[in-house]
């Protein structure tokens, strides 16, 4: 249902051109020269995992595509590209957001932390270690987003951010199983590793006290 109009038009255009024998005059790859000329770019400075980057990007480039396609940090995943799945969750200035629903130009001067910046295989973040210990994944596609989200959830609870299942809004907050499931509901796991994900987050939360 949700096929973008331009994609359909281009397919129809190419198919039509092929049918009419005009194919040799049609550029088959890349944007048309007219589009390339008119697509504006902006300079963007980003600090990603502690490293500064200076980029010149088409204004349409999302933060997610910047990380994956321009900086080759492919840990952050693209699931839906529309804010529905959470696979693209990263921390911007310490706050979790969906990198697919933000433009890189909106982050000029920001600090971004991706899964690669939380820890490395030799020196894992405590949340990464807990996910490994509890088998908090199967295929692993949603995992970078789950881990970034989980790290931010603990901070949000500390900051007194309520959730849909919070009872008394003004009482001190605790991270019960139902609280963390609600707070993690923006991270979908197609493999259904939820109970192990919940165990991993609980362990980190309890270790912090």
């Amino acid at each position: 249902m949700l096929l973008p109009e331009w994609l359909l038009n281009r397919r129809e255009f190419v198919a039509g051109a092929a049918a009419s024998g005009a194919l040799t005059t049609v550029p088959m790859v890349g944007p048309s020269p007219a589009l390339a000329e008119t697509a504006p770019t902006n300079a963007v400075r980003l600090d990603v995992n502690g490293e500064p980057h200076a980029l010149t990007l088409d204004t349409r480039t999302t933060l997610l595509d910047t990380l994956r396609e321009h900086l080759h940090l492919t840990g952050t995943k693209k699931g839906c590209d529309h804010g529905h799945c959470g696979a693209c969750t990263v921390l911007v200035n310490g706050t979790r957001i969906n990198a697919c629903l933000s433009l890189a130009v909106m982050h000029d001067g920001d600090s971004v932390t991706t899964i690669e910046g939380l820890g490395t295989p030799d020196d894992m973040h405590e949340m990464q270690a807990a996910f490994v210990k509890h088998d908090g994944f199967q295929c692993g596609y949603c995992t970078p987003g789950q881990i970034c989200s989980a790290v931010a959830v603990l901070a949000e609870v500390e900051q007194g951010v309520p959730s849909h299942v919070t009872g008394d809004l003004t009482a001190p907050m605790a991270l019960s199983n139902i609280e963390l499931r609600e707070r993690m509901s923006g991270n979908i796991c197609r493999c259904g590793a939820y109970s192990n994900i919940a165990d991993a987050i609980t362990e980190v939360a309890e270790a912090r006290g």
Partner: protein
Amino acid sequence: MTPFTYERATSPEAAIRAVAGTPGAKFIAGGTNLLDLMKFQIERPTHLVDVRGLPLATIEDTPDGGLRIGALVTNTALAAHPRVKRDYGVVSRAIVAGATGQLRNKASVGGNLLQRNRCPYFYNVHTPCNKRVPGSGCSAIGGASRSLAVVGTSEACIAQNPGDMAVALMVLDAAVETMNAAGNTRSIPLAEFFRLPGETPEIEFALEPGELITAVTLPPPPAGTHHYHKVRDRASYAFAIVSVAAVLDEDGTGRVAFGSVAPRPWRVAEAEAALPEGPAAVVASAFDGAKPTHENAFKIPLAERTLALVIAEGKG
């Protein structure tokens, strides 16, 4: 997305000038609704004016005991504000019933009020939709309409306002403060902010081109218990099928508004006055003249049951 130029506004006046003076220009705040629509080419701005750097992200007490919430306050910051949690619980509850932690961290108060509808045909650029292409027809009438509005609709459009926060703001008598291209400010009661579709469903809000939302104001908190109950297809992370925002007093009176049943948060004075008589009387009055489709007629009894639950909750 179609190509666009981008700038960061340095003052509200400059932002308004840039949008009012550039055909095809739009403000962008969190971008969580606008970029989604741009990816589908439902929105095709040629210039984006990023307003997030403007000094409109504070929450302040007003001299009369109310609250003034800057348009750029994030949904998370509003829900977590100590005074909002204590005195305006219905707002915190409504916000955290919507979207996800990630989205609420990015979404702004102004952008939330201006979020567009979730009619499946509005999102499908290959089907007629009067809201997206004025005059093209309404695919939802006679089509898939389960989630759409039952009251306040027109022959041209039956889309519902899907937002949560605005339903809570409606029971609190909130107002929207704006600044226009001439530099004039005004305060629009929320009840007048959302337009019913009539013959022009593409006009959804009482804003002039280039008019910037600067704040939302709340009068002093009304007495009573605060409630927001959202019924949806999943327990979390889904738009409402029906929602009820209410502030209920001990004596059985109170305020109530319904969400996702009409093109705007639905609050009817006569219906509210019937609160002491119970949910059936309130709903009969609030949905008087409703024109549900065969797919969404269930929303009216569902609204009554949801209100019954909220009233029971209020009695503790």
